[in-house]
């Protein structure tokens, strides 16, 4: 019995975003790819429980998140790795942002509590609605909203930004201001 072509397409189409989500969860590309692979195996083994017509991507995200929670969480997230292997894998930095700011952002993101980080990524980057994110995380919509808000506030605190002017290339100016107080 061959795999349904539409199912196959939907699964492959979700892989790039699944990888991005997985990397944001475990902070390590190799482990993230293993997580995605295990997710796909689980999904295909349980493909009968997928309801045709519903969001394949959200279904896969749910499996990935649950699997991460049950297996990967036991091992400690390697925060220090976020600047090593991860940076190596992502060779091209987005040119419209300063590299320092970009690195600072990744560091700040890695310091967020797990609940907040996943809520922020699902809503702010994966493009899920609050309702979809709540389904994926198995919590109330209000909980997701509050986690996203706290995540944003905490990120701004960690990056010492309070207005858009605080972003940008003037890292040294900021450092001088901070040390002068």
């Amino acid at each position, binding site marked *: *019995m*061959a*795999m349904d072509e539409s199912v*196959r397409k939907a*699964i*492959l189409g979700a*892989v*790039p*975003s699944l*990888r*991005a989500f997985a*990397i*944001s969860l475990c902070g390590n590309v190799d482990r993230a*790819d293993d997580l*995605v*692979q295990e997710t*796909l*195996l689980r999904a*295909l*083994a349980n*493909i009968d429980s997928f309801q045709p017509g519903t969001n394949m991507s959200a279904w896969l995200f749910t499996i990935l998140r649950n699997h991460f929670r049950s297996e990967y969480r036991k091992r400690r997230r390697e925060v220090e790795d976020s600047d090593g292997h991860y940076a190596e894998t*992502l060779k*091209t930095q*987005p040119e*419209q*942002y300063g590299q320092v*700011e*970009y690195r600072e*952002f*990744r560091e700040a*993101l890695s310091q967020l509590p797990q609940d907040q980080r996943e809520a*922020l*990524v699902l809503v*702010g*980057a*994966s493009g899920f609605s609050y309702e979809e994110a709540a389904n994926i995380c198995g919590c109330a919509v209000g909980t997701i909203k509050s986690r996203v808000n706290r995540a*944003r*506030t905490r*990120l*701004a605190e960690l990056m*010492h*930004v*309070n*207005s*858009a*002017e*605080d*972003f940008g290339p003037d890292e040294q100016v*900021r450092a001088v*201001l*901070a040390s002068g*107080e």
Partner: protein
Amino acid sequence: MNERKPVGQQNPIETAATRKRTGAKPAKLGRDVQARLGQQLRAMYDEVVNQGVPDRFSELLNRLDANGTSRDKP
């Protein structure tokens, strides 16, 4: 050593520097900050998304497909 402004006379337009001095927390993030954080987040995410589907995943699906059912784990 930090000079504090009397309550109620705080400058409504806070900068990070004044916030550090007063120790006040921002009541709410400005839209500009939220937008910029959102840009950063999507830039990071899209960096991975733009790498497309690594071969190992398309090969995995091919292998499972050739095996006939997904229950035959490799």
